[in-house]
Structure formats: structure tokens, C-alpha cells
């Protein structure tokens, strides 16, 4: 996979900012949409989606695929996802390495999987099915976790590496999620990142979390925390330029504050890449 054509620096597209984006044409390289928000018949969301896609590259990011769930992959969901992808023509389509639906109903959370050979084979067969329908590699994101399964015999990053090798799927590295999980579960975030196959990382996510002292919760309602910026900088020094996106899902600040955070990401990235460049 070549990452030479990185998209640059993007923001999560949220309805709170639709009007401003169209009126002000802010300096954002691309936007990421929550796929499910646009799997509707019509109305405001699709109107702005169509208008914004004329101006900016888009990426699709889903939350309901439930790639590790115990149920069959929802054929209706997949059909709607493909229809949306045909409409949006996104640069790539992502979801999470998790399960969000049980055998009886939808749980609407990004639940962690046991990282076992059984899970690996289960998820790999479903990734292949999804990729066959979408006709493109699926990009999967590491999630924030608050517990681990005792049966896990590998780390999440090792699991992602194996999964990518088996299926050709790509990786969305959420640096905030790595940090949140590492604090909650007491592992080394840097080891996690080093265990990933760097050539398969398509995109990076940055977001804020809430700090409850002993543990962290991935809330996406705060500015990005300093330790996450530090981890991001160090990560880029190994990965090189990588498409980076800032997510904000609650306590929406004025748009200029998000643009300022995006500028900070640009600046940290430039410094990290400069420092990592070989001496002339």
C-alpha cells in the first residue's frame, strides 16, 4: 500500500457545522462522515452531504457494522452501506474492530473482542465478505476498551496485524483510543503502536477524552490531551505523513476552535516529519 497520497488533515463532519462549511469553505483537507447518519431517505443530512462532497474529499466511517458480532452480517445494512459508498465515492470506508450487536439486539457500543485465534478467523471471514460487497479494502479502527477478555492470547495490535495480513484490510490508528486503553489496562501505548504493520495504516484519529483520575473515558467532547499529542508526534516520526482526522462528538465548540486544533496537528506533524527526516 502506498501512502504517498495522504489526504492531509480532516475533521469529522457534524451537522452543527454544515452551514459554516459551505459558507466559509474552511481550510480543511477532507471530512469524515458517520456513515449511519446518511443512511436515510432524504432531508437535510443528504442535502448537505451532496453539497459538501462537491467541495471536499470524503471518507466514510461507520459505527454499526459489528464486524466481530455473533450475528450474521446484516445484509440490509451492507446494502445501504454500499449504496451510500456509491453516492459518496469516499476515499475509503472504515468501521471499528469490535462488536456492537449481540445475538438478540443492537447494543450501540463499540465492545471489545477477545483477541483469540477463534475471533481472528471469525472476524477475517466477515471482513472478506464485507470487502467483496464494497469492492475495496475495509479500514478498521482500534477501539477504547475498559475491560479485557481473559482468553485473549494476543494484543489488539497483534490481532490487527494478523487480520490485515489475512484479509488485506487496512488500519485506522486512533491514537487517543490507544492512550485511553493503555491507561485503563496498564499497557505501553508505544509498544502497541510499534506492533502494528505501519504500511497498512491508512488513517489516524485524534480526539479528546475525560480523565477520571484512575481511568479515562473516550468521550470525544474535549480538546485533545497533551499526552495524546505527544504520542501522535512520536507515531508520525515512524509512520511518515499520514492522513489525520480530529473527531468531536459532543460539547461542540465554535468551528474556529476545531480549525485551531487542526492547525496544531499540522504543525506537530510538520515538526515530527522534519525531525525524522534523514540528514542531508
Amino acid at each position, binding site marked *: 500500500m502506498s501512502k504517498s497520497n495522504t489526504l492531509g488533515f480532516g475533521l469529522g463532519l457534524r451537522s452543527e457545522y454544515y452551514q459554516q462549511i459551505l459558507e466559509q469553505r474552511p481550510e480543511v483537507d477532507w471530512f469524515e462522515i458517520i456513515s449511519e447518519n446518511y443512511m436515510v*431517505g432524504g432531508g437535510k443530512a443528504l442535502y448537505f452531504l451532496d453539497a459538501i462532497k462537491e467541495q471536499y474529499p470524503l471518507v466514510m466511517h461507520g459505527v454499526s457494522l459489528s464486524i466481530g458480532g455473533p450475528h450474521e452480517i446484516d445484509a440490509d445494512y451492507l446494502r445501504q452501506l454500499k449504496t451510500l459508498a456509491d453516492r459518496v465515492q469516499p476515499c475509503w470506508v472504515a468501521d471499528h474492530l469490535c462488536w456492537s450487536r449481540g445475538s438478540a439486539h443492537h447494543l450501540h457500543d463499540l465492545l471489545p473482542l477477545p483477541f483469540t485465534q477463534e475471533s481472528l478467523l471469525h472476524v477475517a471471514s466477515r471482513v472478506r465478505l464485507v470487502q467483496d460487497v464494497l469492492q475495496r479494502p475495509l479500514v478498521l479502527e482500534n477501539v477504547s476498551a475498559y475491560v479485557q477478555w481473559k482468553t485473549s492470547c494476543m494484543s489488539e495490535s497483534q490481532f490487527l496485524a494478523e487480520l490485515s495480513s489475512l484479509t488485506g484490510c487496512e488500519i485506522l490508528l486512533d491514537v487517543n483510543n490507544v492512550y485511553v486503553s493503555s491507561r485503563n489496562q496498564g499497557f505501553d501505548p508505544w509498544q502497541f503502536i510499534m506492533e502494528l504493520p505501519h504500511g497498512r495504516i491508512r488513517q489516524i484519529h485524534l480526539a479528546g477524552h475525560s480523565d477520571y483520575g484512575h481511568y479515562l473515558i473516550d468521550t470525544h467532547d474535549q480538546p485533545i490531551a497533551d499526552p495524546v499529542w505527544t504520542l501522535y508526534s512520536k507515531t508520525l516520526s515512524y509512520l511518515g505523513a499520514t492522513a489525520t482526522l480530529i473527531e468531536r462528538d459532543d460539547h461542540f465548540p465554535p468551528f474556529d476552535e476545531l480549525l485551531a486544533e487542526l492547525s496544531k496537528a499540522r504543525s506537530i506533524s510538520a515538526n515530527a516529519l522534519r525531525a525524522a527526516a534523514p540528514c542531508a
Partner: protein
Amino acid sequence: MRLSAQQEALERYLATGDSVIPHELMEQIQGSNTLPAADGLMIYHNAYRARLLSVLREDFPALHRWMGDESFAQLALAYISAWPPRHFSLRWLGERLPEFIRGYIAEPQRSPMIEFATLEWAFTLAFDAPDTEPLSLDVMSRFSADDWVNLRVYLTPSVRWLQLQHNTVGIWVAAKAEADIPDVVALSTPLDCLVWRHELVCQYRTLESGEASALRLLSDGGSFASMCENLVGQHGEQAPLRAATWLKQWIGEGLLQRR
């Protein structure tokens, strides 16, 4: 324990209201020094309810305001327990709430509350109903005589037609405005109310019975001429003018599309 059994154990724990962690689940879970397993599981348990409750508050803001936070939360949690999410999108979570109220709340609150929840859900349905090309005044202005004779229309897909038995609209308006909420009053005759989307914005309005009958006739496939004939009894020779005025209004409001 197999993967599916592990997932079933966690699903059962999250979806039941009981916060006591079953032994067979606890045996599978590992925590850390900073976040013990029980606390980690509790984060998921609480988040499940908080997330669904928040969606219902957003989809039924006036019902929430009308009932108060505590009563609404009680209703919502009972609903979530009876009707756990069945759709991949949280947008559909509240679909069965009006129906659930029928079996959960006793009269005299039951009927007005069902009506209220149905009205609010109508806005959710109208908000993202399929797009369409409504009949426009511009198109009408180019109608030939034959076009008028052959004109047959549907209501546009976003239109929801409610028949209200109570002063539900007044209560809804007050709740949305965070003003004093009037007492429930039963109406002597049902009131027709439309909720729909026009140019991306949700709209609502009530109809007096004559207009409601005329719109029903036309949108059921009747011709403009038959609508005029139907109005003669009440409006006499003014019937065609009355019909034309209403038709112009309905078209201006984006309520109609051609069959």
C-alpha cells in the same frame, strides 16, 4: 468459553437492568490495577442506558419537558427494557414508544400522552423522509386545460397526517418554548394536523374540517373538478375560488406531488 457464549454473557448483562455482574461473565473478564474488571463492566453497563436515554430525550424533547426528567427517564428505561434496539441506527430507537405508552400508562394520562409521542415522532419521520419533487406553482402556471382535467396528486412522502383528540399542539408548542404548559383538554371534535418537511425544514399546521376533507379527497386521487363539486354545498358559487386558493396554498407549502 466460546466467543459466542462470551458475547452472549456480556450482551445479557448490558441489556438487563440488573447491575449485578453474573459470575460466568466476571470469570471471563480481566481488569487492571487502575480499572478493576467490575468497574470496567459497569462503565459499559451505564453507557448503554445513558446513550439510549439521551437519544430518546433528543427525539421526544417536548414529551421530556412535559413529563419532567424523572418520569421521562422512568418511562424511557422501561421502554428500552421492553423494546431493546432492533435497528442498526439509533434514529429508529423511539419508533415504538407511542405504542409502548398504550400498555404502560393508565388513563386519563394514556391517551394524551400517546398522541403527544405520536406527534413528536411524526417530526422525526418527516425530518429524513425520502426526497421528492413537489408540485410547484411554477409548473402549475404552465398547466394547459387538459393538465387541469387530468391532475391527480399524492401527499409528498414526508407528510404525516394526525387526528388529534386533545389540545396536543398547544401543549407541544408550550413545551418547546419552555413556557407554562396548559392542562390537557379533550377536544369536542378531532383536529386534523399535518407534519411534513418543506425545503429541509419540518413544518406543522392544523386544518379546519372543510380544508381537511378537501385535501383528503384530492390526495386520495380525486380530480380538481370533483373537489370543486364537493365544496359547492358549503361555498356555493365561490367553491372554485375556495378550491383554487387551498390548492395554491398546499402547493406553496410543498404538500403535493403529481401521481
